[in-house]
């Protein structure tokens, strides 16, 4: 569904991405993992055709640069923070982006209800909290039921409670065979949303591993950061008997690169 081949992106002399190749089949959920400046957001912007790059990116068989409109029609995008014309009412905002997606009679109320925003449809966007704005962005991203969802550190601007709620909502709405590419540096999100993890470091794709492998690798780091007592709690939550290692939301909330 998404094919990234030898993508290099330079800002001046610095390479933000250095020959990155990655392939996502339909239904894959891949987390882009890395420290700030690793190239996660740059790669997402390249996939969306927002940046020019060397190499090749295809979404659903469409070149992300040459056939950007067709490629982006397959993609729902949620940014880190919704930059938006904030004097629009919530329902108007959904209707506007639905028109751009060619949806002539959008089910605005249904879209808003899916993310719990229907009671707020008459509010102006500027009146929404950060969490509500992200829900609005998710409602817009899901308009037309696109097969690909691209998320760029979507919980970075939310508080702990908002993060938990939003990740739960994402888990609920991003499933059903949708291909998901998301940037994150929170183990909690990786644990809940990812099937695979692509680790980026200084613009290079270091490796791609399964979620379970990745979480097992990250466990010592988590324990160090949480301390002995918290580590005990995490141990209990991380190793379900006979199942894959997973992290409880509480233990993972504090753990990030």
């Amino acid at each position, binding site marked *: 569904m998404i094919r990234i081949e030898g993508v290099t992106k330079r800002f001046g002399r610095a390479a933000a991405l250095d020959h990155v190749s990655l392939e996502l089949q339909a239904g894959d959920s891949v987390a882009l993992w890395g420290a700030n400046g690793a190239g996660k957001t740059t790669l997402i912007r390249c996939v*969306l055709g927002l940046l020019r790059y060397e190499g090749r990116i295809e979404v*659903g068989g469409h070149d992300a640069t040459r056939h950007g409109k067709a490629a982006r029609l*397959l993609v729902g995008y949620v940014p880190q923070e919704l930059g*938006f014309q904030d004097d629009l009412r919530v329902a108007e905002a959904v209707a506007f982006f639905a028109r751009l997606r*060619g949806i002539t009679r959008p089910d605005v109320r249904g879209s808003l209800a899916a993310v719990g925003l229907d009671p707020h449809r008459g509010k102006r966007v500027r009146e929404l909290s950060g969490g509500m704005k992200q829900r609005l962005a998710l409602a817009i991203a899901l308009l037309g039921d696109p097969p690909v969802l691209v998320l760029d550190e979507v919980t970075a601007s939310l508080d702990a409670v908002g993060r938990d709620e939003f990740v739960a909502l994402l888990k609920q709405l991003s499933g059903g065979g949708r291909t998901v590419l998301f940037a994150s540096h929170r183990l909690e999100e990786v644990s809940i949303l990812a099937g695979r993890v692509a680790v980026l470091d200084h613009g290079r794709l270091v490796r791609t591993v399964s979620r379970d492998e990745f979480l097992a690798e990250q466990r010592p780091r988590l324990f160090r950061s949480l301390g002995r007592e918290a580590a005990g709690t995490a141990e209990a939550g991380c190793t379900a008997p006979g199942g894959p290692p997973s992290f409880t939301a509480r233990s993972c909330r504090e753990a990030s690169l």
Partner: protein
Amino acid sequence: MSALAANVSALCRPRPAGRNILTLAHRELREATRSKRFILYSVAFAALGLAVSLVSASVGGGSGLAGFGRTTAGLINIVLLVVPLMALSAGAGAIASDRERGMLAYLLAQPVSRLEVLLGKYLGQAGALAASIALGLGSCAVILAWKGAATSPSSVAWLAGLSLALALGMLSLGMLVSVLSRKVSVAVGIAVFLWLALVFISDLGLMAGAVALRLRIEELFALSLLNPLQVFKMWSLHAAEATLDVLGPAGLYATEEYGQRLHLIFGACMLAWIVVPLAAAGAVFSRRSPT
């Protein structure tokens, strides 16, 4: 998954460019007409125009300086000052403000092309400018008709049309500034500087150049065509069936040399001022990062 897989083929046909442009233009028009800047400029433009109309109507007599209406002359001067400022600042803010707010990247992440976004914004802003001009000059026309002034409705209509052409040219220039600027404050600053240069420096520059470089009269006329404000001024006077003598030797030369072909010359110059900066803005916008 089957429904989503079906979506891949169903979603393969992007919306036609024209419809996207109209959707974006509608949003831009709405945002522009609600902005305080637009309201301020429109009120100032209408107030100045009404003041000129009332004064000239109360003095009486439609015929004045060099045979054209003094009201038209007053309105031309107001248009020369206000409309370029209004259009340049509107264009300068159009892209840069969205970029600064993070809105541009989000918009371009949707299934729209950059050209559609640029043209949508251009048309929306153009619509707002047309509304402002219609409001300003329309209210003047009503006052003049009420006072029974001799200025004909057709001359006001001509002036409105030429004002819109000037506004479109300045809007194109403003949008070029906007796509080149990362911050809206920088873009608006450059736009104000350009306005000052076009309004004030060009007249003085032409005069100084004519004296210092001993420019021939045809060269002076050709140079004046490089400034869209000069083109608007000459075209407005010509359209008002006034002689261009009031502009001095260059105007006299133009009337004698080109006659009625002046409409074509002025029209081509104004069209170039609309198309060239907008095309340049499109070329820059298609290559620059939206963040």
